[in-house]
């Protein structure tokens, strides 16, 4: 892709995965209609799932997954040392994600439940920012491909990266959806940061808060409505804890 007849220098990208399902990096290969254009803007020099090339001079490192083993800690620190910009890609990287549910149990109990007598190393699940400095967080389970493309283009062109401050509830209302809270569900859309296009509530299931809190979330009134609808504290807490993205409010409540 040329701009004013000049081929701009491509920015070098590395994609790395840790404790996760690799669904976020798969999003980079989805959205097929813009994939070729996107690839013309960046030079993918390290992306194990897609390519055998293993370059080390990446400028942007996209990190998928949470951190839950000592070798992951070491690998992440090495990547941090090489990358100019380190991006936490997806809810596991930003908050720990569903993997964090493990932290409620003693480690030897989860190992025994799954592996019986085999010794398997595991650490309490941590988000990437608990291990190294993170320059930018892109939440989502999975991330929205169009949002990632938009952000990477912003990084390449030096534009400011902006996220919505308002909640998913706003995007959901814009789509004229029937409110799933009115349908009797526990929905975290009113307190969760927008940017997903309200994909879950548009599919008539409740938001589980994968993108974390919106700016100044209005927790009290939501919990009041949910209580009035007959939902128990434990059911609400179950959903707030699903991605470990609302740990602050859970701490305050307990």
């Amino acid at each position, binding site marked *: 892709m040329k701009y004013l007849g000049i081929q701009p220098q491509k920015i070098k990208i590395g994609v790395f*995965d840790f404790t996760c399902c690799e*669904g976020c990096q798969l999003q980079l290969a989805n959205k*097929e*209609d813009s994939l070729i254009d996107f690839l013309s803007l960046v030079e993918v020099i390290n992306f194990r799932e897609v390519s055998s090339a293993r370059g080390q001079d990446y400028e942007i490192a996209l990190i998928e997954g949470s951190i839950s083993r000592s070798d992951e800690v070491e690998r992440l620190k090495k990547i941090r040392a090489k990358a100019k910009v380190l991006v936490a890609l997806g809810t596991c990287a930003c908050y720990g994600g569903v993997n964090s549910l493990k932290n409620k149990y003693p480690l030897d109990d989860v190992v025994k439940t*799954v592996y019986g007598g085999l010794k398997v190393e595991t650490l309490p699940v941590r988000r990437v920012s608990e291990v190294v400095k993170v320059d930018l967080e892109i939440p989502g389970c999975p991330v929205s491909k169009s949002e990632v493309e938009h952000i990477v283009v912003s990084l390449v062109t030096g534009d400011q990266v902006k996220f919505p401050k308002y909640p998913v509830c706003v995007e959901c209302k814009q789509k004229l959806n029937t409110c799933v809270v009115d349908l009797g569900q526990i929905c975290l859309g009113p307190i969760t940061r927008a940017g997903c296009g309200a*994909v879950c509530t548009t599919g008539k299931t409740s938001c589980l808060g994968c993108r974390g809190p919106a700016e100044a979330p209005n927790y009290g009134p939501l919990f009041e409505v949910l209580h009035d609808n007959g939902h128990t504290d434990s059911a609400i807490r179950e959903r707030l804890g699903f991605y470990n993205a609302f740990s602050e409010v859970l701490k305050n409540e307990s």
Partner: protein
Amino acid sequence: MKVSMNIDVHHLTRVEGHGNIHVKVADGKLVEAKWEVVETPRFFEAILRGKPHELAPFLTSRICGICSIGHTLASLRAIERAMHVEVPPTPQQLRLLAKHGETLASHCLHIFFLAAPDLLNVDSVIPLTQSHPAIVNIALRLKSLGNDMCDLIAGRTTHPVSIVVGGLSKAPEKKQLQAIRQRIQDCLGDIETTAKVFKTLSLPDFVRETEFVSLKADGSYPWIGGDLISTDGVVKPEDEYLAMTNEYTVDFSTSKHAKLSRNSFAVGALARFNNNYAFLYKQAKETADAFGLVPVNHNPYMNNIAQLVESQHVMLESIDIIDELLDSPLTDIRAPYKVVAGEGVGAVEVPRGILYHNYIIDDKGAITKANCIIPTTQNNANIHYDLADLVKQEVKLGRTDGEITKLCEMLVRAYDPCISCSVH
């Protein structure tokens, strides 16, 4: 004959997840050939304990970024069988359509993005956008068709939103189904073009006789639920999946191994093909025939071709499913149900093979015990023993270290392993 060599592939590329290949040959004899999975475990079976059953499909879809619809469907089948929920026919058909979308997208991701670069001697699909733009366009068109089928039915491809206990939370509109039907019809020629291109490329010649396990056909090529079958003649009901898998741990892998009548068995597209060839669409059989692929085929590299054959089959079946749906009112998409205590098993053929979820649910609707057995887990031992035989064969033929390394990498890739999934 080669005297000695070491192959040490750390974090194999173009597969999902982290696995290593170690091979050692000394004095012309194989000392060790090891398929070592080093993926970090996430302990899903432990964290499912105590969870409300209705969250289990959303939680377990996160086991895998590629086959999340398959996990959702296996989870739902386990729950629905435990609680005796009768899913109405319309959502059953729509769920199968979403699954077909996932199979198409996943098979195409593997055939074109992960496997084809080896056959064309490049690192990845990226240089192929310049050297083979027509084939890359086909890849993108087929993969996006599969993804759009999933988006339409499930609300989202990776981590579906609208497949829920009892059926679906939302039905697509008929005009959307008509539009996707047209796109499927328009893409059927892409499969034929792909078959022509692949026939000009040669897959490695390697055979190790093994046992193939899949769902057993009951009138049609099977995808969701039913009896289990193996090419060694074992047939068991779905509920006896443990006797079909016999999982065990090995100290060099965070993913377990499995066995049945022999020291290993295989699941996936080739296993389904080998067990259920008779139930494929005629055109899909013709594609297989053109490659000389006939059951029972024991060349693991032919799994790539079996995936192409299945891609064609699911496209043809999707057209028939949509035609039936267009003749129905698309109402009655979710059955109401009562929470009761019980145990259920759900077996689903996901892109990489047969997947099992098994839950015990208490009278409050919470899961008290969970077990998930992943296709790649079932393939690990087969990959492991294949590697040994492959290296022995190629050493005898006097191949170079580089050639043998590439064949080993291609062998593991042929199984399309989903490693993080297998280390759930």
